[in-house]
C-alpha cells in the first residue's frame, strides 16, 4: 500500500514545515529588527542609548537625545507589578473554578473569563482613562493619577483571562485519580487540590507566567492611555512616566531619520529583553522541576527536613535585613528595582517554603489544626480572588455599556461615514478582513505545528529549537510585531499600508497561542486511543486526524476563540501596518483600512469619548456573539467527547 505510506510521508513533511515556520518567523523578525536597530544604536552610542536618562526627539529641535533608561525602568515596574497581581488572583480563580465553585456558576464563570479574554486592550485603556486614573487622582498626594499603579492595575485585569484559562486547562488535564487518590488517603478537598492537583498542573502554570509577562510587557494601547507619557525616571507609583512600547507607538507616526531608527532600536531592546526573560524563565522551570524531583526523593528523610526548616528561617531573616537596607536607599531607582526582585523572589520562594512546611506539618499530629487553618485560608483566598475578578469584569462591562449604549444607533454602526457623523462601517469591514486573513494562516499552521510537536516529535532533538522559537514568538511584544510588519510587509514587500500587511503580521503574532492551546488539548487525549487506532492497522495520519484530533476539537475551538479575540483586540500592530484609514470602506485586502479597536483609540485620541465608548459597546457585542456561537459549538462537539 504505497499510497498510505506516501500520505504518511507527505503529512509528516507538511506538519514539519508548519512547525518550522515558527523558527523562520522568529529569525526573520530578529534579522530585520537588528539590521536596522543595531546601526542606530551604534550611531547614538550603545551606552548613551541604554543608560541615557534623557529622551528628547522633538522634530526640529537641535538637542536630540535618545536615552531609553527611563522607559526600560517603566516597562519593568509596570510588568512586574501587573504580573504579580494578576498571577496571584488568576491562579486562585482557576482553582476556585476548578474545585470550589458550585457547578451552576462554573459555566457562567468560564464564559465570563472567556469574554474578558476577548475584550480589546483599548477598552481597558478607555476604562483606565475614564475610571481608574480619576479614582487614583483622589488618593494621590500629587494629584497625578497616571503612572505605574494605574497601568499595572489595568494590565493585571487584562492578563487575568490568559492566566486563568491556561491554569484551568492544565488543572483539568491532571488525571482525576490524582485527586481521588489524595482524597482516598484521607486528605481534605482543599489539601488534595492545593497539594496534589495544583503541583501536578505546574507546567501549565509556568506557561501562564510566560504568556502573561509577554502580554504585560508587550501591551501598548492600554498602557499608553494611562501611563502619562513623560519620559522620566520613575520615582513613585503615581507619576507620569513612559514605557518602551508606549514610546514606540506614540512617536513612530511622525518620527523620521535617526529618530525612527532609534525607535526600532527600542524595538530591539524589547525583543532582546523578552527573549532573555524567556530563556531565564525556561531555566528556572527546568531547575524547579529538578528541585521538586529531588525533594520527593528526600521526602522521607527527617533530618533533611529539619535542615530545610533552619534554612528557611534563615532566609526570612536575610530577606528582612535586605528589605531594611533597601528601604534606606529607597530613592534610588536601581535599588528600588532590586527591591522589586527581592520581593519577586520572596513571593516565589514563599510558595515553595509553604508547601514544604505543610508537608512537614502533615506528619505532625499536633500541628494539624494549624494546617487546617492554612488550607482554609487558601480556600477563602480563592473565593475572594474569584469575587475580585468577577467584580472587576462586571464593573468594567457595566461601565462601558452605560457610557456607550446611548450613542449606539443603526446609523452609527452601518451608516455612511461623514466628517460630522463618523460611523463604523469601514472599521467593521476592515476587522472582518483582518480576522479572515489571520485565521486562514494561523489556524492551519498552528494546528499543524501542535500536531507535529505532540504526535510526531515528542522527544526528537530539533524540537527543542522549535519550542524555543514558539515561546519566544509568544513573548515578543505586539508593538515589535508592528515594527516588523512595518519594515517587512509594508516596506520591503511593497504592500504599503494595507489590511494584508496587518493580517499577516497578526497571523504570525497569534500563532504561538494557537499552537499552545491545541497542543495542551492534544496532550489530554489518552494514549490508549492512539494505541487502539494503530492496533486496527490505521496509519499515523489516520490515527492523528480521525481519532486524536477530533478529541481535541474543543481545544482547537478555544484556540480559535482566543485568536479571533486577539485579532479583534489588537491595535498596536495595526497602527503601524494598516494605515488608520477611518473614513473609507476598504475594497480588498490590499487597501488601507481600520479596525474596531483601532477606531476606539482614534476616537479616544480625538477626545470623542462618546463615540469611543459606543464603539466599545459594539465590539463587546461582537465578542459576546462570538463567544455564544463558539460555546454552542463547543457543547455540540463536547457531547460526543470522552469523559475525563
Amino acid at each position, binding site marked *: 500500500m504505497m499510497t498510505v505510506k506516501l500520505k504518511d510521508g507527505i503529512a509528516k513533511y507538511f506538519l514539519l514545515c508548519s512547525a518550522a515556520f515558527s523558527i523562520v518567523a522568529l529569525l526573520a523578525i530578529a534579522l530585520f529588527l537588528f539590521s536596522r536597530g543595531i546601526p542606530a544604536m551604534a550611531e547614538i552610542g550603545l551606552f548613551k542609548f541604554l543608560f541615557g536618562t534623557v529622551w528628547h526627539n522633538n522634530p526640529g529641535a537641535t538637542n536630540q537625545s535618545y536615552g531609553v533608561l527611563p522607559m526600560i525602568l517603566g516597562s519593568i515596574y509596570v510588568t512586574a507589578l501587573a504580573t504579580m497581581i494578576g498571577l496571584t488572583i488568576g491562579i486562585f480563580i482557576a482553582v476556585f473554578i476548578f474545585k470550589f465553585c458550585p457547578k451552576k456558576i462554573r459555566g457562567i464563570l468560564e464564559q465570563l473569563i472567556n469574554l474578558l479574554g476577548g475584550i480589546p486592550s483599548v477598552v481597558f485603556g478607555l476604562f483606565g482613562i475614564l475610571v481608574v486614573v480619576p479614582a487614583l487622582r483622589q488618593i494621590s498626594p500629587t494629584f497625578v493619577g497616571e503612572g505605574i499603579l494605574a497601568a499595572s492595575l489595568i494590565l493585571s485585569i487584562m492578563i487575568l483571562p490568559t492566566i486563568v484559562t491556561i491554569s484551568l486547562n492544565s488543572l483539568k488535564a491532571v488525571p482525576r485519580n490524582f485527586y481521588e487518590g489524595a482524597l482516598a488517603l484521607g486528605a481534605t478537598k482543599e489539601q488534595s487540590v492545593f497539594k496534589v492537583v495544583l503541583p501536578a498542573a505546574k507546567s501549565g502554570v509556568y506557561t501562564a507566567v510566560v504568556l502573561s509577562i509577554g502580554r504585560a510587557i508587550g501591551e501598548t494601547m492600554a498602557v499608553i492611555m494611562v501611563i502619562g507619557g513623560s519620559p522620566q525616571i520613575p520615582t513613585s507609583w503615581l507619576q507620569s512616566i513612559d514605557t518602551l512600547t508606549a514610546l514606540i507607538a506614540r512617536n513612530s507616526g511622525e518620527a523620521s531619520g535617526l529618530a525612527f531608527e532609534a525607535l526600532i532600536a527600542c524595538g530591539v531592546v524589547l525583543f532582546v529583553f523578552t527573549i532573555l526573560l524567556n530563556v531565564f524563565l525556561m531555566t528556572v522551570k527546568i531547575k524547579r522541576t529538578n528541585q521538586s524531583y529531588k525533594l520527593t526523593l528526600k521526602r522521607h528523610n527527617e533530618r533533611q527536613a529539619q535542615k530545610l526548616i533552619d534554612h528557611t528561617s534563615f532566609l526570612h531573616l536575610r530577606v528582612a535585613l535586605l528589605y531594611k537596607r533597601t528601604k534606606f536607599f529607597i530613592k534610588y531607582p536601581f535599588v528600588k528595582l532590586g527591591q522589586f526582585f527581592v520581593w519577586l523572589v520572596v513571593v516565589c520562594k514563599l510558595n515553595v517554603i509553604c508547601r514544604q512546611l505543610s508537608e512537614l506539618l502533615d506528619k505532625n499530629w499536633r500541628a494539624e489544626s494549624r494546617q487546617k487553618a492554612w488550607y482554609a485560608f487558601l480556600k477563602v483566598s480563592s473565593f475572594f480572588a474569584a469575587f475580585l475578578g468577577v467584580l472587576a469584569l462586571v464593573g468594567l462591562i457595566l461601565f462601558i455599556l452605560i457610557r456607550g449604549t446611548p450613542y449606539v444607533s443603526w446609523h452609527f454602526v452601518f451608516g455612511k461615514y461623514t466628517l460630522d457623523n463618523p460611523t463604523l462601517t469601514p472599521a467593521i469591514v476592515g476587522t472582518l478582513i483582518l480576522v479572515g486573513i489571520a485565521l486562514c494562516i494561523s489556524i492551519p499552521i498552528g494546528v499543524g505545528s501542535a500536531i507535529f510537536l505532540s504526535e510526531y516529535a515528542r522527544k526528537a532533538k530539533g524540537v527543542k529549537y522549535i519550542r524555543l522559537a514558539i515561546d519566544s514568538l509568544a513573548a515578543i511584544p505586539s508593538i515589535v510585531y508592528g515594527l516588523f510588519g512595518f519594515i517587512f510587509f509594508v516596506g520591503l514587500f511593497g504592500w504599503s499600508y494595507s489590511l494584508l500587511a496587518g493580517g499577516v503580521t497578526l497571523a504570525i503574532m497569534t500563532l504561538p497561542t494557537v499552537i499552545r492551546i491545541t497542543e495542551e488539548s492534544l496532550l489530554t487525549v489518552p494514549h490508549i*486511543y492512539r494505541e487502539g487506532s494503530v492496533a*486496527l492497522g490505521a496509519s499515523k495520519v489516520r490515527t492523528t486526524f480521525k481519532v486524536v484530533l477530533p478529541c481535541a476539537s474543543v481545544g482547537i475551538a478555544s484556540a480559535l476563540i482566543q485568536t479571533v479575540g486577539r485579532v479583534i483586540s489588537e491595535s498596536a500592530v495595526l497602527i503601524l501596518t494598516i494605515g488608520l484609514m477611518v473614513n473609507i470602506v476598504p475594497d480588498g485586502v490590499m487597501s488601507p483600512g481600520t479596525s474596531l479597536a483601532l477606531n476606539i483609540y482614534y476616537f479616544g485620541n480625538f477626545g470623542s469619548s462618546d463615540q469611543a465608548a459606543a464603539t466599545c459597546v459594539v465590539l463587546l457585542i461582537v465578542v459576546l456573539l462570538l463567544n455564544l456561537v463558539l460555546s454552542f459549538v463547543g457543547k455540540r462537539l463536547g457531547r460526543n467527547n*470522552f469523559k475525563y
Partner: protein
Amino acid sequence: MKENIIEIKDVQLHYGNHHALKSINLSVSKCEILAFIGPSGCGKSSLLRCINRMNDLIDGCRVRGKVVIEGFGDIYGKGIDINNLRKNVGMVFQKPNVFPMSIFDNIAFGPRTHGIKKKKDLDPIVEDSLKKAGIWQEVKDDLKKSAISLSGGQQQRICIARALAVQPKILLMDEPTSSLDPISTAIIEDLCENLKINYTIVIVTHNMQQATRISDKTAFFLNGEILEFGETTQIFSNPKNEKCEKYITGRFG
C-alpha cells in the same frame, strides 16, 4: 500436528537499558488459544506487543530477534507493511479504549481504514462483528449512541467487536477482563471459546482459572524469560518447573 501461525525466535527486548525480554522462543499453531501467565512486570505485555509491533510506539524500545507470522515472514524484517500486519493481528487492551464516537463509527473505523467506505457494505460488517462479540442484542437499537456511555464490560466487548471488524487472523488480548465484573468476564470467556473456531488468540491473564478454562496452551513468564511452556492441562496438573508450580498454586513470594 497443526502448522504454526506465529513463531517467535530468540526475541530480546530492551526499554532503554532495561533488558525486559531475554531470548524468547515460542510458537503458536492455528486456531488455538495461548495464555501468558506470570507475576507482574515479567514481560508478558512486552512480548504480546512484539507480535503486532505495538512496541514501535514506545520511545527507546528496541527489539532483536525474529517474529515470523504466517503470510508475512519476519515482521521485524525489511519491507513489512505494518498497517497491514496490524490489520491481520488485532489487539484488545486491558482498559477498554472505545473512541469517543458512536458505536457504529467505532466498529466501522477499522473497515473504513482499509477502504470500505459505503454504508451498505459497512452495515453487515458492523452487525456481524457485534454479534460475534456478543453485544448485538444490547446495542442494536442504538448504534448512533456514543460508545463512551456504555458500561465497562460493554465497552470491552465493543473493543473486541472493533478488533474483529477488520477480520484479523490473530487476536492479542492483554488482560481483557481485568477491569470487569465476573458476569462480563464470563461473557468474554465464552466469546473466546467461540472465536477459537476462526481465530488464533494469545491472551495475557492474571487469573489462573481463566487460563485453565479457556486456553489450550500456557506459557509461564518470569523476569523476561519463559520458564515453562506446554499444554494447559499438563502445566496446571503437573508443572515441571518448581517456580511455575509455586506460582500457580499461589505460593509465590
